[in-house]
């Protein structure tokens, strides 16, 4: 069986690789892989037929990256839950006293529940909004702080 895999930079392999060579390409038990017939990307250790390749401790042969145009595999993004950027929302809410951080938290709170309910596109859309509102909150507070300092300087208070 030949598998596509996701390398350490997060990119999908250009061509499928025979399962006996997967570890030589740096595939670990936690690497996401996909082959014909699978509905979605899975971590290698969740596929029983691949287990035998991860018990061998022998030194690995070095191989060139696979070449080709793999266009059959589903998009890798479908395997990984989008980040909710909750840290951004919480941080800006606590520090900046701006309503934008709260908007970010509201969107962030929807990401996981939508994702696990199977609404992957909606989860991704909410992730984007959580990120953008979080950044908006951060940038706004920087701008306001900058203006405040400008006012202080122009008033001759510094």
């Amino acid at each position, binding site marked *: 069986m030949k598998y596509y895999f996701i390398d350490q930079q997060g990119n999908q392999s250009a061509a499928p690789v025979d399962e006996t060579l997967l570890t030589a390409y740096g595939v670990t038990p936690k690497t996401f892989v996909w082959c014909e017939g699978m509905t979605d990307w899975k971590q290698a250790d969740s596929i029983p037929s691949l287990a035998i390749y991860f018990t061998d401790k022998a030194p690995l042969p070095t191989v060139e990256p696979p070449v080709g145009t793999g266009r059959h595999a589903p998009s890798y993004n479908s395997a*990984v*839950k989008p980040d909710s950027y*909750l840290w951004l929302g919480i941080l800006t809410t606590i520090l900046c006293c701006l309503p934008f951080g709260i908007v970010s*938290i509201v969107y962030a709170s929807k990401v996981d529940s939508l994702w696990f309910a199977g609404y992957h596109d909606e989860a991704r859309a909410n992730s984007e909004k959580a*990120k953008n509102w979080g950044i908006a909150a951060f940038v706004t507070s920087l701008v306001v702080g900058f203006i405040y300092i400008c006012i202080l300087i122009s008033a001759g208070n510094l």
Partner: protein
Amino acid sequence: MKLSPRHKTIATATMAVIIVAVLYIYASEDPESSRWFPRCFFHELTGLQCPSCGNQRALHALLHGHPCAALANNLFLIVMIPIAAATAITTLLPYNALSLKIKSTVISRRGLMIFVALYFAWWIIRNIAGI
């Protein structure tokens, strides 16, 4: 913005340096007596307290070992500190099935909605009660 493991390490290290620097500044300077600290523009404009007003003074008090003085500056820290800690920990966990389960248990959608509701309730209550 999917970070590779190496970039995630760099980002985490940078954040750690910034956090240590900020903690050092807030420990050595009193935000109340120095004009170099950022002001809450909501408070400057309206004279009312925002939900986070008092956090800088509270951080200074906390770093000097006065938790009660910190809470006197902003009682909402009782809610904000635990949720900030939970967010920080779940964000730093590596992405896998176990961490996803921990994250959805520790930070639920309902929990966040309650936090948002408490945030606005605190905003109103502190200005009425003057705390």
